[in-house]
């Protein structure tokens, strides 16, 4: 069952001054009391938030707060873990993402993902980028598609003369940009990034942050990050999650504490726990 993709291109032509208004208009994801359990252990409880189109939305919080678990709900990667259960309501452009007729494979064609550790396939650089387009049977010249994706990922000039080389010959930062090229080659609607820079040096990190700001023109981006400066630098909206203990104090789970404009979360947070965390008092 294909998930319909609304045409939102007109949003990009609006004047920059209206951007602040615009980005809150079109909702890509609506989460209502979303909880995730692994077997009997809760991982995230009762998260409600809206993720907006052509925004960078950052999920921040200490280890174990369920950021990665939450982002993996958005493209149904949690389906790959047999014990994982997702409860609550999760809508993607208004459609129930966990509806009985929704095919997770179809979902992942529209919602791409970049992982913490660069995970290129042990194939040539070209075949890595071509994998997605070939998978979904994209029309058009495959070489052109690959070149465009590599250009947009800012990697083309570095690899154009060695497209046939194995991707593992690239540096860590290049590999991660290759993974981003691989994710955008299929022209997805959303890109999820699960700590994409945590294994990279500051220069590679800066390149990927610049890249994210460029990609934002075309895609909605959700990023999990441990790095608060990164969230402050690149994101439009920031969600802060915190680890809580269950009533019997035996298990820990993540909870959404605060979700607002990034500037507000970092300068004038509503919750004292957010302030403690971003000011470095805890976490």
């Amino acid at each position, binding site marked *: 069952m294909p998930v319909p993709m609304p045409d939102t291109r007109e949003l990009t032509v609006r004047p920059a001054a209206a951007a602040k208004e615009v980005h809150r208009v079109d909702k890509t994801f609506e989460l209502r009391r979303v909880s995730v359990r692994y077997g009997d252990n809760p991982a995230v409880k009762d998260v409600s938030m809206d993720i907006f189109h052509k925004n960078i939305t950052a999920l921040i919080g200490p280890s174990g707060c369920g950021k990665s678990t939450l982002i993996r709900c958005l*493209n149904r*990667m949690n389906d*790959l873990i*047999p014990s994982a259960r997702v409860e609550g309501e999760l809508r993607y452009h208004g459609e129930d993402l966990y509806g009985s007729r929704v095919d997770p*494979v*179809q*979902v*992942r*064609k*529209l919602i*791409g*993902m970049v*992982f913490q*550790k660069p*995970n*290129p*396939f*042990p*194939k040539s650089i070209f075949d890595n980028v071509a*994998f*997605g387009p070939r*998978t*979904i049977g994209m029309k058009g010249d495959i070489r052109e598609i690959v070149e465009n994706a590599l250009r947009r990922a800012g990697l083309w000039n570095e690899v154009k003369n060695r497209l046939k080389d*194995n991707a*593992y010959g690239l540096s860590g930062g290049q590999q991660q940009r290759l*993974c981003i090229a*691989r*994710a955008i080659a*299929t022209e997805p609607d959303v890109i999820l990034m699960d700590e994409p820079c945590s294994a990279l040096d500051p220069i590679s990190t800066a390149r990927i942050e610049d890249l994210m700001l460029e990609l934002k023109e075309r895609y909605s981006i959700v990023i999990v990050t441990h790095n608060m400066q990164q969230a402050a630098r690149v994101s439009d909206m920031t969600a802060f999650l915190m680890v809580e203990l269950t009533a019997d104090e035996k298990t820990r789970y993540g909870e959404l504490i605060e979700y607002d404009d990034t500037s507000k979360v970092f300068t004038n947070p509503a919750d004292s726990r957010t302030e403690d965390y971003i000011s470095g008092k805890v976490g």
Partner: protein
Amino acid sequence: MTAHDIAASGAGAGSLRRSLEAASPRYGERAIRAFLVGCAAFSVLVTIGIVLSLLFGAIDFFRAVPVLDFLTGTDWAPGFEPAAFGVLPIVVGTLNIVFWALAVAVPVGLLSAIYLAEYAPARVRRVVKPMLEVLEGIPTVAIGLWGLFFLRPLAEDLFPFLAWSTPHAVGVAGVAVGLLIVPLVASVSDDAMRSVPGSLREGAYALGASKLRVSLRVVLPAAVSGVVASLVLGVSRAVGETMVVLMVAGARPQISVDPTASVQTVTGHIGTTATGDISTGTTDYYTIFAVGALLFVLTLAMNMFAIRLVRRFREVYE
């Protein structure tokens, strides 16, 4: 002033002397080390011994029969009058067995491995995997019996249009050998595929790849060196298999591609000759060394070829 004196004076009177020398000679450790080296050397020496004994026997054989006649001759009739020592018929017999064995073991073994590694739920795996390992240990004579009295009649029922002229059939023997090596191929390939990092699977799933695509396009290519290794092990086993072949394939040295033909293989010849009443020291007797050496060279060449193949096509991750 010696080093000890310095240590003693430095540590003060009456206290323990500090020394950098070993407190005791540790004979135990040396003994264990010598024992372990001995064990390792023993297996190497045994291997060398086997090769040498084959070689000496083969040299005696080639004093009577020119090497070229042996390697290119198409008539194999040691023990007959006049005797012929062209090895090709039994080599082709072995290739026949390998062909039919691979025809069974490659699809069945690889598909089982893909199922086990990528599709099977954990509880199915927990049952099937140990069963595969048990199957690997079934005595080959039992498989031979089963091939002769079950598989051979079944083959005739399934393919009545073929010319089943003898109670033996090389195709049936090959299929039986193939079934014998399926567990090996499946088990080793499964291990290879499971050792492919999960991050590669995740990467492919995140691009909207189906399970089949992830298995065939990402996991299988990444595991190719292990998969090829499993096939090489399987082929070596098929080449070396004797009992099933003796019982099911028959004993007529002839060059034939007919799966219903009775055909002798290299191992079949060694098996019958070594257990027959041929007097030692005759040329007939020395054939088994020559043929044994040939078998050794064949499997060695195959293994080296496979290693090169794997190096060429391996997808290196990390």
